[in-house]
């Protein structure tokens, strides 16, 4: 009685799962942003590359980002991957009625491989390879419940061992080719997030200083926050020794007595403290 109900529920759960997976598909563009962003003709080459046979190392597969849950597609170097070639040693071969399962170890990692035996030629091919043999596997990369595996279309024994070195060199070559067109983009991102962001924060106190001196010696509170903003400058906050009063005066271009008065208040409030000597101070904020 429970079994029937349970079965029904499972069915419902399955459908809900499928729905949520489709729902997840809606997030796909943001998750796989690497693909559309990478290079101008990204969307065009994406479709083509998904079907292109890519030579890969197992390490690359394990590092790959999953593009979307429902299609179990992966992105490597910003391109969708489905058909791959791996070269490695066959381990733990298990022959079953309809398929052969084994582990492929290419020295960079291990991955489960399945070969369905539909035709007698498939069976013949699989009989030719055994544990310890080097094999060339062409197949589809699949993801299931977070585990990655390969469904092989062909498994051939390596007879010319130059194929192994060649495969790895081919992996490098293809990686280089795919990252070459994208390489400009990450550097631009770095440039825009790194340096200008930093510069903005550094510039901030100076801007305030100019507005302050323009408006004259009126609000003491502004000087107080200006002084603290110098301490919290990203270029300074990590300095173990802290900074001197002279540095702050020079930085803010304000009268010495004004700065000293504000500093004393900050010291009394516990916002800043002495470091290596009586002249150096550091913000208490950086812990």
């Amino acid at each position, binding site marked *: 009685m429970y079994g029937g109900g349970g079965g029904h529920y499972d069915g419902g759960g399955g459908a809900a799962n499928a729905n949520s997976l489709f729902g997840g598909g809606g997030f796909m563009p943001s998750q796989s942003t690497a693909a559309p962003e990478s290079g101008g003709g990204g969307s065009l080459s994406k479709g083509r590359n998904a079907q292109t046979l890519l030579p890969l*190392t197992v*390490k*690359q597969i394990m*590092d790959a980002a999953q593009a979307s849950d429902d299609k179990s597609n992966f992105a490597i170097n910003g391109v969708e991957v489905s058909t791959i070639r791996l070269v490695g*040693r066959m*381990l733990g071969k298990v022959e079953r009625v309809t398929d052969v399962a084994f582990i492929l*170890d290419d*020295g*960079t*990692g*291990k991955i489960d491989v399945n070969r369905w035996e539909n035709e007698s030629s498939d069976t013949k091919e699989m009989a030719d390879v055994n544990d*310890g043999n*080097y094999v060339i596997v062409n197949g589809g990369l699949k993801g299931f419940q977070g585990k990655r595996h390969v469904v092989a279309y062909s498994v051939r024994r390596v007879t010319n*061992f*130059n194929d192994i*070195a*060649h495969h*790895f*060199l081919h*992996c*490098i070559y293809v*990686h280089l080719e795919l990252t070459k067109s994208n390489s400009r983009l990450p550097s631009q991102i770095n440039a825009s997030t790194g340096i200008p962001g930093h510069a903005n924060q550094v510039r901030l106190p100076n801007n305030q200083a100019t507005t302050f001196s323009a408006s004259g010696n009126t609000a003491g509170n502004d000087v107080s926050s200006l002084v603290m903003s110098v301490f919290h400058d990203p270029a300074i906050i990590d300095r173990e020794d802290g900074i001197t009063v002279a540095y702050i005066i020079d930085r803010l271009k304000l009268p010495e007595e004004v700065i000293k008065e504000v500093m004393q208040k900050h010291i009394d409030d516990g916002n800043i403290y002495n470091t290596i000597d009586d002249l150096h101070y550091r913000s208490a904020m950086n812990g």
Partner: protein
Amino acid sequence: MDTSSPAAIVNGEILNKFVGRRVRTVVQVQRNEGGMVFGQSTDGHQLTIKSAMDIPVSHFMEVYGIAEHNQTIRAEVCTDFGPNFDAKAFDGLCKLANDKFKHLFL
């Protein structure tokens, strides 16, 4: 055989950096003295392979094992790569796989 951790692809020179760790390399067999194989790495270094398989002299042998010293590998798996193997290409691969493209391998 233990294949649990990845093995660095090395030549004689790069072997230095992986003492105590798993490596894979190819040597050309020069002498075989009861399980100890003396061979030449693809970059011309003399390497000693302990507990190696019996592989004919002048054949290339691939070794998976632990780097015991900078010139000694304790073999776990050996494969006869035959007499015709492009040592130069493999040596080039060693250099690339441990430098700019290390992230694809280790």
